[in-house]
């Protein structure tokens, strides 16, 4: 990586945007602090001013009142072109230049900054690799790439001059759901390496919860409704607008923020090959999970034992029921629930990193968690916490 410039904080100070001829401001007295190296997602319905808020940072939209500071320096004191060359910029339609090759597209900002050809080209090839594209794509034209490849080139182009701040305006909005998820994951992996300050606009609350270290929810008229971490947002919506926007399924969304290891798992009676079935049957009495799980000598799950498996003297080598799905402690809860539902099974063994049994997850545990007073208490605690940035009104 070239140099590795440190990320910069972005802070909105009482920013108001009025468009000429409109009575109501598009952005209403916005104050927001984005820490260096964090992803801040600006989310809201159309007309809520999220894109306007983003574009004031690079002055493609001018601020009417207030100020925005990048690493402590006012954007209003900067020449707009210079300012923009220090910010990565990714838009929904990607906006690759159709008449320039992939490499030439990536070299845009370095060339504007006066880098020589060789240095810019070396950087372009380095970035292609970073975003997971083959180097030999460099002399293709954008029309020869798939949508996902174009989007990766768009991200590479934005990163070309190693900007301290990245502005992304619905960057994955035009991509089909499967590729969008892949690109989101790739970007999160990339971000864990490059640690830029990212402002990310989307209208999709699921994307916001997934991508954001913090999420700013905008409501109609350019008011900031809530600025919080995704977990806080889901547990303690600041008002009815946020509650509606986050959706009735916010409890389910919360599962997206949890991993299997975060919940108390059940224990299944364990059985080993050759063990006397009498012992196993005894363990089944009053067990949390009413089925015995056959494990090998390394305690790796091999299958569930049925009634007929326990008819003989000793536990058989091949159980009736497969142990699938086997979950991992690091699986996201939402995915784990999906696996359970898809396999139409009540219980799934959970293993640790070495594949050894760590417990059993059941649909019941999840539904109890979602409806538990524990979860409700958590919500109240979150509500009582002072909200840093209350509604603008």
């Amino acid at each position, binding site marked *: 990586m070239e140099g590795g410039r440190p990320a910069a904080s972005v802070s909105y100070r009482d920013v108001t945007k009025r468009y000429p001829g409109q009575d109501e401001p598009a952005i209403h007295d916005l104050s927001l602090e984005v820490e260096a190296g964090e992803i801040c997602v600006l989310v809201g319905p159309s007309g809520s001013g999220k894109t306007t808020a983003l574009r004031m940072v690079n002055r493609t939209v001018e601020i009417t009142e207030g100020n925005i500071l990048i690493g402590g320096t006012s954007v209003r004191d900067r020449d707009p072109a210079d300012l923009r060359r220090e910010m990565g910029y990714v*838009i929904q339609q*990607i906006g690759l230049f159709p008449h320039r090759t992939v490499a030439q597209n990536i070299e845009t900002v370095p060339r504007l900054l006066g880098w020589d050809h060789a240095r810019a080209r070396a950087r372009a090839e380095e970035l292609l690799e970073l975003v997971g594209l083959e180097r030999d794509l460099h002399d293709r034209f954008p029309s020869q790439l798939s949508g996902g490849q174009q989007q990766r080139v768009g991200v590479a182009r934005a990163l070309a001059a190693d900007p301290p701040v990245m502005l992304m305006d619905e960057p994955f909005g035009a991509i089909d759901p499967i590729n969008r998820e892949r690109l989101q994951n790739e970007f999160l992996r990339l971000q864990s390496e490059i640690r830029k300050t990212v402002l990310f606009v989307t209208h999709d609350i699921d994307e916001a919860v997934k991508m954001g270290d913090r999420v700013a929810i905008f409501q109609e008229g350019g008011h900031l409704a809530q600025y919080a971490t995704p977990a806080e947002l889901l547990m303690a919506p600041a008002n009815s607008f946020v509650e509606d926007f986050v959706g009735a399924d916010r409890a389910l969304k919360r599962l997206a923020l949890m991993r299997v290891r975060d919940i108390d798992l059940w224990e299944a009676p364990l059985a080993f090959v050759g063990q006397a079935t009498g012992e196993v049957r005894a363990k089944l009495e009053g067990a949390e999970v009413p089925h015995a799980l056959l494990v090998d000598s390394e305690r790796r799950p091999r299958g569930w034992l049925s009634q007929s498996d326990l008819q003989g003297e000793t536990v058989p080598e091949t159980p009736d029921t497969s142990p699938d799905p086997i979950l991992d402690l690091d699986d996201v809860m939402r995915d784990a629930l999906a696996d359970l539902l898809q396999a139409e099974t009540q219980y799934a063994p959970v293993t640790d990193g070495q594949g050894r049994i760590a417990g059993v997850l059941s649909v019941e545990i999840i539904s109890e968690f979602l409806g538990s007073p524990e979860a409700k208490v958590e919500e109240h605690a979150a509500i009582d916490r002072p909200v840093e940035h209350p509604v603008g009104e």
Partner: protein
Amino acid sequence: MTAGAVQLAPLLGQVTIHSRTGANAPCQAQESKVFCFQWAVDNFDRYTTPFLNQLLLVLIAVGIGFAVAFAFAILSHRQRWLIPTFTGATGVLYTIPSLAFIFLLLPITGLGWETAIIVLSVYTLQIIYRNIVAGLSNVPVESQDAGRGMGMTDRQLLWRVELPLALPEIIAGLRIATVSTVAISTLMVFANVNTLGQPLYQQIDFKTNIVIAAGLSILMAIALDLLLLVSQRLLAPWRRPSMGARA
């Protein structure tokens, strides 16, 4: 107008005189309706000067027309309210019949190359201007947004993004303008420029002559058109249909 008619009278006289001398040419089939190959071979050099004159006239006229139209188009690209004004003005000029245009210019520039160049370049303005404007306004908004968002100044955006992307349409305009200028330039014999119109109107009833003069003019148009087409392909490689395949 009277002055124009007076100046044109000797020209018309010249036409009849030449047509009479044509009768002495060594081809018995002169009055016949068939193409006389032997006459064509013997007399081909009489078309060389008109051909070269016409080619030069077309190149100068399209060159000047392009320069003026380009300047107008760049001016109106950022001041969009100018577009209807320029389109209207060049459109009105385009409707003037070419002979009338020559007569209108007689009192100012007289007969000769100057008049011919003015008339022909003015006719190219409308087509070239409209195509440059159309090309620039068809530049994808997201390319402009991305360019500006990455820190291009207006000038950099124009020269590095907008004009290259408008190039295919600009050249398309040049092709139409060039082909039509080749055709109209034969009429510039009436401005006393020795283009292929000169032999053409001299012996308007001699089939072989008509075929050669008109044929050379058509060949010139086709050749220039192809030249521009090839340059478009070379300058805009991203538009080649064979590159449409998606990975």
